[in-house]
């Protein structure tokens, strides 16, 4: 029986073993940070000798960390909103409309994802320095929105391509205007994908380090800029606490996004 199975699906022992090792490698950094954050020693220790919430208290008491967190959450939220508002109509046009030079436009939309972030970051830095936008919420938001746009575009395009065009036609044949069709058919069907895309865009914007590193000013820093500086100058376990909180927030968001999708699939089958 086992001989039959191994013939049917080639899965060499070596590949299985490698997979297990790689999985440990992949998970190690994420997992290691969490216990470190609950230590009490000033220098890093693993595993910590005694457990405490010292570094969480220190994080929440530190004005600079709190400012950076506040700024990052605001920027990520607004950037996500902006990118969604830009990406959604664009996606619909690519799926249902006609655009001249659509190939070039698609390349433009995807470029921020493909080109090195450092180049984008430096370009934005020089330009925003001229326009006086460095360290401003507006500057951060548009920069993050530009970076999030390709991800949202791809996520939404995948969702739109799964929509049956006959649904639009059915709505029209039943008397719905194009706007009514969008409001009552297209949008509700896309909503779970939109929410999932927004969750991922939010995380991406929150975690983005390169552009936010360059656009931050000494008085207005994002969370990632603050972390970057602190890791570079003085590796304090407060960073482990911050990291743990970021991991937690990310997984809550990803989990919710996944849940929304699962519920939709369960309810309506494959749309």
């Amino acid at each position: 029986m086992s001989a039959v199975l191994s013939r049917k699906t080639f899965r060499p022992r070596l590949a299985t073993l490698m997979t297990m090792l790689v999985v440990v490698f992949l998970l190690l950094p994420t997992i290691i940070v969490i216990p470190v954050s609950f230590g009490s020693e000033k220098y890093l220790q693993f595993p910590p000798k005694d457990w405490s919430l010292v570094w969480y208290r220190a994080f929440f008491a530190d004005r600079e960390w709190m400012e950076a967190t506040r700024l990052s959450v605001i920027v990520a939220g607004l950037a996500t909103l902006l990118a969604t508002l830009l990406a959604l109509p664009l996606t619909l046009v690519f799926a249902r409309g006609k655009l001249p030079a659509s190939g070039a436009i698609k390349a433009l939309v995807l470029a921020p994802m493909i080109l090195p972030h450092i180049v984008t970051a430096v370009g934005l830095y020089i330009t925003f320095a001229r326009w006086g936008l460095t360290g401003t919420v507006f500057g951060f938001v548009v920069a993050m929105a530009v970076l999030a746009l390709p991800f949202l575009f791809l996520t939404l395009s995948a969702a739109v391509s799964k929509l049956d065009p006959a649904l639009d036609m059915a709505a029209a044949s039943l008397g719905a205007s194009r706007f009514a069709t969008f409001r009552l058919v297209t949008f509700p069907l896309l909503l779970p994908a939109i929410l999932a895309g927004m969750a991922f865009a939010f995380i991406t914007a929150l975690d983005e380090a390169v552009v936010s590193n360059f656009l931050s000013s000494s008085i207005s820093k994002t969370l990632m800029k603050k972390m970057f500086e602190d890791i570079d100058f003085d590796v304090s376990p407060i960073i482990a606490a911050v990291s743990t909180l970021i991991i937690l927030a990310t997984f809550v968001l990803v989990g919710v996004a996944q849940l929304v999708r699962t519920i939709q699939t369960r309810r309506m089958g494959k749309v």
Partner: protein
Amino acid sequence: MPASLQHEALMLAQPVSDDPRGFSLRQSLLLAAPAVLCLLAFFVVPLSTLVEQSLTSPRLGLQNYVRALGSDLYLLILWRTIRLAAIVTVLALLLGYPVALTMSRVSGRVAGLLAICVLIPLWTAVLVRAYAWIVILQRQGLVNEALLGLGVIREPLRMLYTEGAVILATTHVLLPFMILSIFSVLRTIPPDLDRAAANLGASAFATFRHVTLPLSLPGIYSGVLMVFILALGFYITPALLGGPETLLMATLIGQQTTETLDWGLAGALSVTLLVITLLLVGLFGRVLRLEGKG
């Protein structure tokens, strides 16, 4: 029938659309405009500024490019960057392929679990991971403690701020991209092909070599391209985990921009990196397209 009457009134008010199946040209342009304008203002203009700086700062001419490509130091850094990106790409491919293969061959539940394991690092901020590697690799870190405890070494090893650390951490960040890229192709190969090959007398290894591997090439190509390009422009991980002898292009560009304030040189180096990236995309794009046709 009041409904019909109402509908008749509605009909008269309906505009005639030139393409009833989708958006008209005008509607399309209108809907695409915000995104395109935003990208022009906050992406194309910044990149153009960079090019402009490289050609005009401090005065008009190619002197920045002469400096960037004429200096042994900068060429060494460029070479180091390309070499590192290549090493990371090969490592990611060697580590990633077995995972992708296993993911495509196990039952849905195990595959889902594996997928989560691959996605968890992807959704952990790059900075958080860089920090984690510091915890693991530093003098009193996890690895040194373990090796000292086991008596393998007497003195703690210096692992942080070396090229090895940069390669390890960069591979870790980019590995999920490789795995997902290969997996997305492997999952589309019908399992019947394996059975057919086996039925026709191929050994498990022959099946892999003659059926699975060739069919998964598009996934390998796109994974290699993605990882290589991302590795070329990596900034955060080398900046935090590398030392002076592992200075890479991105870090160099960053230094010229914010520390030396030599925007002309930063521009020229950026354009160089950009051109290499675009050449690679173009080249691989052609290979992928040919693969797709064949």
